[in-house]
């Protein structure tokens, strides 16, 4: 065949090929080359990000297992651990939104399962281009970026999450959805999952004990997701195999459900010594990682791998990303019992090899050795320190004051500006999404999607509950990736505090452009520093994460978008925490926190006036911590009727959301929470560390005292009641936030 040499077509550089030759002391064969290419890919080896990720703070008294494992584990007391993990499925979801999102859910659940926990909840963080045109602008047409395509994507992704998550039997209890032109050619689909388990039952992803059997459990292996290495199929070794195969992975939630039940029973009956799910790089990854982490060697035969299609070559079997499979290591005397458990749950299982002390991963097919390599050379991958340079764009954006480009607002135009703001898809009601998700299964959901700023799940048989929120703020990161990343952590922690939980751990999903561009690498590094700063200041260790690079289309990179998931603990849970809706006529409305003139990157400046420049919003860590502690105490004391954080759209949007959620208006004195600022700053500034509360008059004084104790500025701004807020009928707001698409 013509064109570049094979290793380059497989994405390996000349240097990398040389490294492989050194490791093996010979040329790699075709199968080995394929295995190295998938394991040394950015996705599997974190080769561009590894040197930076070490800066993330991952230690803490409650951290049982931090980054590097299939999932992070946090001790919540009573011998229980919360298992949590986040993943991106961006590229597959753009190609085929339903299956891309569905297999993303399937994959993250297996990560939780691998630790030995039943996944009991999942969360989705979604980003698309605009589903409707911005006011006064025309549809950004073009088949791939137009609004129709974006609507098709969002509907497809949501149905995929619903279709897979509901059927596999794991409730989707929260998430976020964001729309911005930056994602039009590259949507982001991040999914997070969580399990709760006795710490004593943690499973390890290692293959120890030479002689132990290696079982492959679950679905059969087909040519799914071998897109990257499929060039090998046409590399001239096999004539007539030129049929272009779709590399889309198709999920089967039924198969995964059976796999979950089978694995949980295997783990609980103590039949396994190790387990590893099959995700990216399939069998290659699972065998090399477990071997490298255990006794050091493994002999594998491909002859017993259950195949879905005839004529599969060894490299195809080894790199297939067929879903719903798990590798399990079992002592010889337990093999029969283990196979029995799999049969009981109708999860196919075969013995595909055994653990050795050879220090080699040897793979055979029909008596022939197709691979013989040191497993750690696959598992450890490569690591690069890529060049970085600060993008000029950031300097240019920072030097422009948004106030100079934005109108000054008199009180008369306020209702119109607010109503227009509320038509932004970023403020639209997500009920149409989470109504399609089973969010109640397992009877833990105390606060479900749409009811509060974070989901609250009780932990049965204890008095505890965990709260979870997911946030990302790409537009702030465009202005300043360091502060933007920090603001995402702050917002997620604040959301968790809003329902009364103390933040205890975080996971992060880093969605960035092409790391080979020094500007993107600089943004990445700055975002890591921002995460570190925030996590240290707020005392939330990062227990896991995921990096997704190459989020670019036609050379245009997305805004740097770290998405942060925070887990909080409520102990004890004494009832249902106050939600976000206004409810009690006569309740006092408070705005907590200090408002500065933060219109840089704000929703109002962008959606209403197409202005994005200046600095990302202010964070004051002392104030941030005080505000979170105040919210936790308010909820603990049952003092508020409603609590809602101020974020996208500022106080104006927060007040409208409280009114819509409770179908009740409020009499609010305009700008009473920031009398020294201009009207537009007061209403639409997105300063961190603020919230809107409504409090029965009888306890207003206690809340004021509590705020004082915590040093949180608290402004009484009005009274709940009536059918309008900020001069806008609640029914008009209801209509504005209901997506017409």
């Amino acid at each position, binding site marked *: 065949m013509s064109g570049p040499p094979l290793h380059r077509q497989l994405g390996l550089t000349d240097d990398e090929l040389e490294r492989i030759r050194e490791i093996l002391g010979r040329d790699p064969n075709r199968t080995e080359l394929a295995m190295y290419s998938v394991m040394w890919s950015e996705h599997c080896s974190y080769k561009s990000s590894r040197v930076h990720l070490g800066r993330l703070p991952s230690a803490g008294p409650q951290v049982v297992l931090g980054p590097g494992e299939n999932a992070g584990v946090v001790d919540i007391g009573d011998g229980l651990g919360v298992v949590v993990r986040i993943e991106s499925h961006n590229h597959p979801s753009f190609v085929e939104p339903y299956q891309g999102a569905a297999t993303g859910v399937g994959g993250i659940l297996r990560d939780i399962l691998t630790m030995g926990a039943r996944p009991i909840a999942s969360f989705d963080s979604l980003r698309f281009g605009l589903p409707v045109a911005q006011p006064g602008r025309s549809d950004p047409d073009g088949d791939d970026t137009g609004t129709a395509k974006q609507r098709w994507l969002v509907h497809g992704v949501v149905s995929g999450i619903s279709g897979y998550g509901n059927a596999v039997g794991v409730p989707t209890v929260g998430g976020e959805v964001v729309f911005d032109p930056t994602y039009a050619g590259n949507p982001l689909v991040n999914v997070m999952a969580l399990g709760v388990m006795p710490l004593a039952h943690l499973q390890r992803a290692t293959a120890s004990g030479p002689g132990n059997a290696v079982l492959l459990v679950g679905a059969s292996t087909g040519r799914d997701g071998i897109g990257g290495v499929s060039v090998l199929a046409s590399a001239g070794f096999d004539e007539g195999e030129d049929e272009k195969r779709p590399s889309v992975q198709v999920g089967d939630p*039924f198969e995964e459900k059976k796999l979950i039940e089978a694995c949980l029973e295997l783990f609980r009956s103590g039949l396994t010594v190790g387990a590893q799910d099959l995700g990216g790089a399939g069998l290659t990854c699972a065998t090399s990682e477990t071997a490298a982490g255990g006794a050091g060697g493994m002999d594998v035969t491909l002859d017993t791998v259950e195949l879905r299609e005839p004529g599969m070559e060894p490299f195809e079997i080894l790199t297939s990303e067929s879903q719903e499979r798990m590798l399990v290591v079992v002592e010889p005397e337990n093999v029969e019992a283990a196979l029995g458990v799999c049969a009981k749950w109708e999860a196919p299982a075969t013995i595909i090899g055994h653990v050795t002390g050879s220090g080699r991963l040897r793979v055979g097919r029909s008596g022939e050795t197709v691979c013989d390599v040191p497993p750690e050379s696959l598992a450890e991958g490569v690591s690069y320190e890529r060049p970085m340079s600060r993008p000029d764009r950031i300097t240019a954006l920072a030097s422009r004051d948004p106030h100079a480009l934005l109108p000054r607002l008199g009180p008369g135009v306020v209702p119109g500006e607010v109503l227009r703001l509320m038509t932004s898809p970023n403020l639209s009601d997500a009920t149409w999404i989470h109504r399609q998700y089973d969010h109640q299964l397992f009877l833990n959901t105390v606060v479900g999607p749409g009811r509060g700023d974070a989901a609250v799940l009780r932990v049965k048989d204890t008095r505890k509950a965990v709260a979870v929120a997911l946030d990302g703020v790409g537009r702030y990161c465009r202005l300043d990736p360091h502060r933007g990343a920090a603001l995402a952590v702050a917002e997620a922690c604040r959301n968790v505090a809003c329902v009364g939980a103390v933040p205890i751990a975080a996971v992060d999903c880093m969605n960035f452009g092409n790391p080979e561009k020094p500007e993107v690498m600089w943004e990445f590094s700055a975002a890591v520093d921002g995460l570190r700063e925030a996590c240290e200041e707020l005392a939330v260790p990062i227990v896991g994460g995921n990096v997704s690079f190459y989020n670019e289309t036609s050379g245009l990179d997305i805004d740097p978008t770290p998405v942060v998931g925070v887990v909080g603990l409520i102990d004890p849970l004494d009832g249902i925490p106050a939600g976000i809706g206004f409810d009690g006529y006569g309740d006092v409305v408070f705005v907590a926190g200090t408002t500065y003139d933060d219109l840089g990157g704000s929703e109002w400046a962008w959606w209403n006036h197409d202005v994005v420049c200046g600095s990302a919003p202010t964070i004051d860590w002392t104030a941030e911590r005080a505000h979170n502690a105040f919210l936790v105490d308010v909820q603990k004391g049952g003092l508020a009727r409603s609590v809602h954080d101020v974020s996208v759209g500022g106080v104006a949007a927060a007040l409208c959301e409280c009114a819509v959620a409770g179908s009740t208006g409020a009499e609010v004195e305009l700008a009473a929470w920031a009398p020294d600022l201009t009207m537009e700053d007061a209403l639409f500034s997105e300063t961190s560390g603020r919230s809107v509360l409504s409090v029965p008059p009888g306890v207003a004084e206690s809340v004021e005292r509590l705020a004082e104790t915590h040093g949180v500025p608290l402004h009484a701004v009005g009274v709940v009641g009536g059918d309008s807020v900020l001069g806008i009928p609640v029914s008009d707001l209801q209509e504005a936030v209901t997506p017409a698409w």
Partner: protein
Amino acid sequence: MTGLVAIPIIPGVNCEHDVAHAVRIAGGRSAFIHHTDRALPAETGAVYIPGGFAYGDYLRAGAIARFTPVVEAVARAAADGMPVLGVCNGFQVLCEAGLLPGALARNVGVRFLCQDVHVRLETAGTPASHRLKAGNVLRIPINHGEGCFTAPAEVLDLLETRNQILVRYCAADGTVDPADPVSNPNGSLRAIAGVTNPSGNVAGMMPHPERACEAILGSADGRPIVESLVHAAQSAPAPQSAGAGGR
């Protein structure tokens, strides 16, 4: 001894732990019955077929599940008068198996719906409803994509005259309006949310009573239904042949 609530587990079902939890807080005992079992335990006093996606809901919800040995055992027990309640996917299985009339078609809005609904109890005095009074309005969640109850008009008429309608979707004040997409979100004919067989011992409903048994989860309105079944299980005479299934 009777009193056990048997919970058949067909692969793909997922509400079994929730049902067991609800049965426990309603004061009952339960046991999971594997789908390959050809008989129910001798002490079985009632059966609660849980929701989920048996066999992935492939082809049609309940279509493949109905042929499992455990469903055949439930059918034999039901013929002998055993109280049986199928919820959601369990309801779909009972319809597919011909133990209940009608079918559950795709929701009118096509989309899957997980939300609270109100239902009005139409027929009290059955094993699944004896703790309630006709006219009681309950707030209980639904969670399904195929819940639009459908049957030929003459069958619907018969269901009405024979008091085989267990619950109907309604507004919070109990008003039933089959044409109202808010109170009858899946478009069920005559707003039917649950039915029974002619003798009343077999019942099916789309809303999930086990999801509404504790105030902390938002509603305890489903609890009387679970309690009814638990009580029926405890007071049922030992069935003559339920335990002696098999062929």
